[in-house]
């Protein structure tokens, strides 16, 4: 599904290398987790994948189902099936949550040459998805993320994911700022989307989220590289001993 090869990324504004040769392959149907200490480049990886400005790819490639991702505009990446659940979802005053979601869904469908969803069908769709995530009608009507609590914002990200049905879902510290109940809700939302035709890349600091969203593969990232990969047990090791031992071992 997603193939990252020898990816080097620098900040555009200051000549600073953040990613120094990331290699990663996520196959269809799988859930991969990336863990790592602060400043290791986890969030940068998620931003570069989604096409945010300010980063320069100096070397390497990223493909989604064989197609070059780095050439595409952010909206083209979305239409191609890439989705980033933001660590800090953005507030957009004046744009209703429903309008936003319907605009996004229809824009993607249009880009893929599919028929747009009618207002009535969309309403049915969103009501069903929102119910699963315990998002009430009021939250759907309010402007995007404005006045939402931390937990509501993260649930709203998962709602977008559920409606847009992307192939490749990247979750950037979706667990940050969530209490236990909200984490369960969000995890259930994610698990409901697990499918043979869909892959996940879950970026997190803590093993806790991975109790709910069980990964197939866990990667440890440090200083702009994947330094170790393994099964779910690797996450438990981090939880128990911190990153120190692992980093010392690969150094």
């Amino acid at each position, binding site marked *: 599904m997603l193939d990252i090869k020898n990816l080097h990324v620098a900040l555009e504004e200051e000549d600073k290398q953040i990613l120094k040769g990331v290699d990663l392959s996520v196959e269809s149907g799988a859930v991969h987790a990336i863990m790592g200490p602060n400043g290791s480049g986890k969030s940068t990886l998620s931003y570069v994948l*989604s*096409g*945010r*400005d300010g980063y320069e790819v100096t070397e390497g490639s990223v493909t989604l189902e064989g197609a070059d991702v780095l050439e595409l*505009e*952010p*909206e083209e*990446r*979305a*239409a191609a099936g890439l*989705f*980033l659940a*933001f660590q800090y*979802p*953005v*507030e*957009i*005053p*004046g*744009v209703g949550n429903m309008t*936003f979601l319907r*605009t*996004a*869904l229809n*824009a*993607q469908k249009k*880009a893929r040459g599919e028929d747009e969803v009618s207002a009535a069908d969309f309403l049915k769709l969103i009501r069903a998805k929102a119910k699963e995530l315990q998002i009430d009608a009021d939250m759907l009507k309010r*402007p*995007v993320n404005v006045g939402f609590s931390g937990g509501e914002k993260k649930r709203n990200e998962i709602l*977008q994911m559920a409606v*847009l049905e992307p192939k490749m879902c990247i979750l950037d510290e979706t667990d940050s700022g969530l209490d236990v109940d909200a984490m369960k809700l969000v995890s259930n939302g994610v698990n409901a989307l697990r499918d043979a035709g869909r892959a996940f890349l879950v970026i997190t600091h803590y093993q806790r989220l991975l109790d709910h969203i069980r990964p197939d593969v866990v990667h440890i990232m440090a200083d702009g590289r994947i330094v170790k990969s393994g099964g779910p047990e690797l996450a438990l090791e981090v939880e128990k001993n911190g990153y120190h031992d692992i980093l010392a071992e690969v150094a």
Partner: protein
Amino acid sequence: MALPQAKTDATEERLAGLSLPAAGGWGTAAREDALGRLRSMGLPQRRDEYWKYTRPDTLVQADPPAAALFEAKDESPVFGAHDRLKVVFVDGVFDAEASDDLAMAGLEVERLSDAMAADIHWARDVYGVLEARGQSPVARPFAAMNTAFATDGLCLRATGRAEKPVSLIYLHRDETSDATLHHVIKIEAGADLTVLENGPAAARFNKCMEVEVADGGAFHHVRTQGRDHERRAVTHIFARLGREASFKSFTLTANGVLTRNECVVEFCGDDAIAHVAGAAVGDGDFHHDDTVFVTHDAVNCESRQVFKKVLRNGATGVFQGKILVKDGAQKTDGYQISQALLLDDDSQFYAKPELEIYADDVACSHGSTTGAIDDEALFYLRSRGVERTDAQDLLVLAFLAEALEEIEDEGIAEDLTARLERWLKRRRR
């Protein structure tokens, strides 16, 4: 204080080419008084503080610069879907043929000239009276000039709930027309009237509207100015509000090389409300000035000023807004926000928000911002699949939404929003 000689000379030079229209009745005195006011204040010049951000030259000069005629073939008429009483003016002259029958339940409608000829008339107590009150503490010479020289206009008196809105349609047919219209509106106690205005009116348009709202009366006003690019306009609204009166005015402006809209509101009775709002979008050679002055001289009144501007390709926006709370006007709730969204580095916004408060138990707030499209929001929308241009338009409309929400009629609000959306779409490259 004597005026500077240069100002007096410029004013006299302009007046030399004009003569007061024959009015008869009380109109003659009203016009002569206004001419006296105009002479004592003089026409504005570039260095006048109140005209610091807007050049008055083309409004003062004897002949207006020609303005090419424009017909919006790609749009249906504004307010066309609304059940309304149509009153048409062509280059500032009433067109009876094109207008509806002016008889309507709950409303008296008369032409200004007819009202002036009548011996005793309610309009006499309003015409030029509210304008004269509005000349202090800041002079508004074009309004005095309007009262003196207005060639046409309507007198509307609402005695009950008017059956439908009065829709004033200003057509522009002559490239060099110079029109001066003056409307007088009286909302009697408990009465309710909506006035809609649209159209460019003339190459140069000086319009004045005096609105007296008696106790418990309600006046609603929605106006559109656009899309003619070359027109120039200076307009004034003077409103005086009685106890529990309600005054709501919204203006949508798209294009126009020069527009100055002044709105002067005075609270004279307790528990009244006034909302003045505007959304303006400009591209290139566009200059739009909203100048608002709200005086609280009564207890527990609420005023809101909400003005939003979207500017691109070197367009200029101006906001001068003042809330004056007089001694004793306790429990005043005053709010004022003026914001501009600049879509490039060439456009500019000048804002002069002012509060002057002499009462000690009031809640007044004001804010003014100038900014660009929020990159974070733009990226967020794009990351969900919305194309850059669509995402930008969505954010522009979201920015204008707070002003458009001031329109009470949902149908009109939706229609104007859709027009704005099309205006933005036409500007894509």
